[in-house]
């Protein structure tokens, strides 16, 4: 039976367990003179039965479904005759896809070597067996759990404690999922990155100035190694992010100041949500705008003044990205500006300073750490932004500071290296994970610093 069908089945079993335990607890309570003589309400006996029947079954189901594919694959590969064993992981995946195509009937078994056809048969039997075992095991566990809960319905048993402890544990697991996600991210990028550095020395990756990850078709081809120097990608990322921040910081900061200090209540009430709409627009829309409207416009403009601009200029991507992070900067600055105590404002105004002088000489310096924290967060946003640069920036890794030229970024390379079919063991694919690792570390560092600054600053006035 398929996992998709087993899931509702388990839920139904849990509901049945609930119902049975509920009736059982009432039946147990009846001769004693009503449910007030039970240690817990019938609901808790019932909920306990549902939990005990459902949770172990679900865990087993998830584990089985998670690993059955891999286990079956390795058994099938292992069953191949010695002389036809695939030598590399790439070859193995090719053979596997052939086998599964035969098994699925997409490929006629007469057209493939005998061992493949045999393996396809094995694959099918294994899949059937696995599905049957899985279904039986899961149902068995669910029934066992429910039966155990059934036997434990007794007046002196405190089911509420059990239920509450279980729920609490579930809540904890949910909270810990965040840690698990981080661990998953770190784990997945580290493994592939280490494999990558087994092929390309880390010094080449960090200090070489050329990036061309094409791997050759033939081993003896010129440049078959590919070049994996991350510097041009990094400068490209920095160039675009710098342009973005040059737009976003003044615009965001000044609009936050205006809205918090000068604007009338009505203007604030309308302008703020409209500004925040900018943050809600999907990045693919900004990418579309940058690639199809802003980039050609900049190219034409540059041509008019006699400059040469690429149709995928860094400027276009940077400008649009700047617009995207304006609300980010403005809402963070708004928070910190509002956190500056009113007494400081009043004091400055009472001394005869104008509003702008108060802003520039009193509030801004006081809010500066928070604002810097906000800018760092915005920078990490800009560095990690993908769609705008995928659509509007180029693919060629130019080491340049000219905003009218085309540059590429770390995120663009990750996306292009991993889109489409790829083999998992080429340096080209692995390099994407190394780039991901780099991106993760840089953004993490920025975020940690920014959050520290912001928190420290908050404590100052709280």
């Amino acid at each position, binding site marked *: 039976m398929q996992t998709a069908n087993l899931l509702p089945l388990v839920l139904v079993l849990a509901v049945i367990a609930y119902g049975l335990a509920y009736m059982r607890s009432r039946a147990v309570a009846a001769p004693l003179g009503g449910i007030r003589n039970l240690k817990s309400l019938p609901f808790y006996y019932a909920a306990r039965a549902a939990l005990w029947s459902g949770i172990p079954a679900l865990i087993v189901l998830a584990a089985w479904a998670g690993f059955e*594919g*891999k286990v079956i694959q390795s058994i099938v590969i292992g069953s191949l005759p010695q002389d036809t064993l695939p030598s590399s992981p790439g070859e193995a995946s090719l053979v596997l896809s052939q086998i599964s195509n035969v098994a699925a009937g997409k490929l006629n078994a007469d057209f493939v070597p005998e061992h493949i056809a045999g393996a396809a048969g094995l694959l099918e039997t294994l899949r059937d067996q696995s599905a049957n075992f899985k279904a039986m095991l899961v149902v068995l566990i669910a029934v066992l759990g429910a039966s155990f809960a059934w036997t434990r319905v007794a007046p002196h048993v405190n089911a*509420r404690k059990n239920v*509450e402890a279980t729920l*609490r544990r*579930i*809540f*904890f697991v*949910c*909270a810990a*999922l*965040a840690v698990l*996600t981080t661990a*998953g*991210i770190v784990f*997945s*990028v580290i493994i*592939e990155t280490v494999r990558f550095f087994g092929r390309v020395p880390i010094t080449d990756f960090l200090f070489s100035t050329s990036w061309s990850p094409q791997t050759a078709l033939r081993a003896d081809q010129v440049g078959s190694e590919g070049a994996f120097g991350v510097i041009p990608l990094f400068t490209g990322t920095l160039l675009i992010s710098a342009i973005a921040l040059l737009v976003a910081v*003044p*615009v*965001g900061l*000044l*609009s936050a100041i*205006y*809205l918090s200090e000068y604007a009338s209540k009505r203007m604030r009430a309308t*302008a703020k949500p409209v500004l925040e*709409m*900018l943050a*809600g*627009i*999907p*990045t*693919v829309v900004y*990418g*579309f*705008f940058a*690639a*199809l409207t802003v980039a050609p416009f900049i190219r034409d403009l540059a041509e008019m003044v006699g400059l040469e601009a690429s149709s995928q200029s860094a400027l276009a991507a940077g400008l649009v990205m700047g617009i995207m992070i304006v609300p980010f900067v*403005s809402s963070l600055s708004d928070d910190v500006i509002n956190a500056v105590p009113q007494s400081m404002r009043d004091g400055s105004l009472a001394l*005869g300073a*104008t509003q*702008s002088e108060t*802003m*520039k000489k009193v509030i801004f310096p006081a809010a500066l750490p928070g604002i810097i924290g906000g800018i760092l*967060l915005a920078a990490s946003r800009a*560095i990690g932004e*993908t769609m705008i640069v*995928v*659509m509007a920036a180029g693919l060629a890794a130019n080491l340049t500071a000219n905003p009218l030229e085309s540059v590429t970024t770390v*995120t663009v390379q990750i*996306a292009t290296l*991993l*889109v*489409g079919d790829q083999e*998992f063991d080429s340096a080209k694919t692995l390099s994407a*994970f190394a780039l991901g690792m780099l991106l*993760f570390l840089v953004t*993490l560092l920025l*975020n940690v610093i920014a*959050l520290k600054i912001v928190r420290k600053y908050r404590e100052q006035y709280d």
Partner: protein
Amino acid sequence: MTDQRSQAEIVRQSLKRRYRKERRFRMYGMLAIFIALASLAILFADIISKGHTGFVKTTITLDVALDSEMMYLEDPTDEDQLSMADFVAPIIAALQEHVPEAESAAEKRELGRLIGTYGANQIRDLLKSSPDLLNTTQTMEFLAHDRVSVYVKHADNPSYTIKLSEQQQRWVDELLEKGVIDTSFNDVLFSRGDSREPSNAGILGAIVGSLLTMLVTLAIAFPVGIAAAVYLEEFAPQNRITDFIEVNINNLAAVPSIIFGLLGLAVFIGLFGMPRSVPVVGGLVLALMTLPTIIISSRAAIKSVPPSIREAAEGVGASKMQVVLHHVIPLAMPGMLTGSIIGMAQALGETAPLLLIGMVAFIVDVPGGFLDSATVLPVQIYLWASSSEQGFVELASAGIMVLLTFMITMNALAIWLRKRLERRW
């Protein structure tokens, strides 16, 4: 005394300059807001001006004589004959009635190219489903070829190149005048999946894909997010583990989305062997991505429930868990819902991680389940925007308009919920 007076003098003299500065500063602020709002306006105007034609289709309505001799088809129930038959001939013949000047074989071929590639299939499908229509004359509506469509919709737009010959342009003008070629609301856009041909491509497949993906995301992120928030706010002891979890959640909220794509690729596809390009994997990845948003907003909602409620419940003998389940969660639910809807809207617009897990494939069929290959709306927009075929640009903008409509609706719903249900204590 003179000293003081001169100081007052200095202040008075500098006042003008200071007021000027004040005004200038004010203007900078207004300018900044203006720039931000103007960018938003330009963005919308640009997309609407590019995309409104995407909602229009160009059709050619013809009285087609389904002549068996012309098509070399005697028995429409015979598969072999159907595959050999010439379904273009009756279309050309029908067109020729309106454009009698096309007589030579080359001209007839040119004429036939006014109809989209799927025109012939339309006749075949019709005959296959009702064979007794053979040798009758039917009024049929065909989709015009993309080149015709571009010509009809964008003849005076310099950013489009017209790829029709002079002669074809003349014919199209003539047919337009006769009302044979007409434009109407593009229902194809909302009833089909992707296609190689812009006039035949729709966003239904992508919308269904988005819907399936969002369902998976919601089913995971909403309960888990709320449970996590409840744990952290109500049960977590003050210790290192709790601190570590909190730091983790805050950092995850700022991790670039493409990193989650790497996670999905390495863990769900690489380690667990899940299939590529399916809504389940996409939904899982997006769920992990939106979890921090949901947790953070749910925590804020839980925090806003006043302690007096908790104390009152505890006072009448409720256990901690009963306080939470019976009182805190129901009271915090509007805030939690609002945060979740905003998180879901974010996930709906997300593209980058889905590129990495293979949801960029060219998929014609509308997905029917969580394990069918699918794409989502933003990815479809990306695919069309990067296509070289000019008809896809207007479809991409039309897709953006649909996507933005969804997002604005979701955000409006969130705001409405907040206003309607949130209680001030």
